[in-house]
């Protein structure tokens, strides 16, 4: 099952903490987005493996922009 993580806030990607193929647990910190002069941690919506990442550092994102896709572990 594929889980899409879309951006909940507008801002700039500060840091991507995971790579494609990595395994993550639910609620692991996977990304940092800078918004309103604040560093905002983004957490994994589900446990599984990172299938694809659609953004890189310094990208500007809007709300609902696709960030990455997780292949959920069943």
């Amino acid at each position, binding site marked *: 099952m594929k889980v899409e993580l879309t951006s*909940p*806030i507008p801002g700039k990607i500060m840091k991507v903490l995971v790579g494609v193929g990595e395994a993550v647990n639910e609620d692991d910190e996977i990304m940092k987005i800078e918004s309103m002069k604040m560093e905002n941690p*983004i*957490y994994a919506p589900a446990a599984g493996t990172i299938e694809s990442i659609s953004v890189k550092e310094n990208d500007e994102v809007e*709300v609902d922009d696709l960030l990455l896709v997780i292949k959920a572990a069943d």
Partner: protein
Amino acid sequence: MLEAFTNGFSGLLAGFMHLQISNVVMVIVGCVLLYLGIKKNFEPLLLVPIGFGCILVNIPLADLMEPHGFLRTIYDAGIMTELFPLLIFVGIGAMTDFTPVLENPVTFLLGAAGQCGIFLTLALALALGFNELDAVAIGVIGACDGPTAIYVTAKYAPHLLGAVSVAAYSYMSLVPVIQPPIMRLLTTEKERTVVMKATRKSVSKTTRLLFPLVITILGGLIAPMGLPLLGTIMLGNLMRESGAVERLTSASANEMANVVTLLLGISIGATMDGKIFLQTQTLIILALGFIAICLDTACGVLLGKLLYITSKGKINPLIGAAGISAFPMSARVVMKEGQKYNKKNYLLMHAMGANAAGQIGSVIAAAVMLSVLKGMGII
């Protein structure tokens, strides 16, 4: 010859001879403000000039606040005339994006609830013995908005200007410390973890442009005494949203806001003469200011709880705490707290909406307050 020498020399010693204990204490107070601003990052843009102005005015015989002193000239030019807070407001309007409020107009009510602390503290101040206009100035600390508080206090209780400004700006910096415990106390686990999804884009450019215009006219008709405040912040916002006066918008938000902030800070510091500032009532005012912000937060969260019920669990009460005008600190606090209780919760945009609503709410609250006072014949 000897007499000339002695007199001349006494000119150099006179300052020390006239030094009173109140001067010394106030210089220390000024240094504390500088410390808070520089080292602790408490609203440095205001506290640094205020702190230094305070030190300047408390060095004897310089007469900086006497009729021809340079601090007095600045004070008369901008605080007596109310120009400084109003010009800063133009800049604030030019910097603020009200889209998050417009996305969900219900947040306006949170912006209103976040101002209840003003009126409750006003009543409390009255009960403690302050007279009506003093109580109004003390209550307006709860507006959590520098220019609004300065505007009201400079006009109706100028002797309290130092205390009110120091309280307002210090507590704004303390919002991350003051709010979370209250937010936690008044909400249940279930309410705190409500996830609010990002709102769909529903605000057209036309709406964003008409918003400042409509608010100014409506607000001005209902509460004309507040039109200077409301009109200036909305002018700034109109310029921003029109996109047609980029140079003016930029100058308002940057050059003008920065210059005026500096002058404002110095003049407020210049009012902190020891004889006026060092009274028991200053401490009481500081305490009441603290209470005002706590009450603001509480009322905001409580209305948030009401909206939680009426929206059938869709609205997270925590965003009510962002209904105060401490922009954008309060929104950041709400975002952090929300994520603390539920990692999947990103309340930032909703909190920003409530925070911007609080900005408008504080202006309307001050405007209403002044217009009611005018109606009652007190001003």
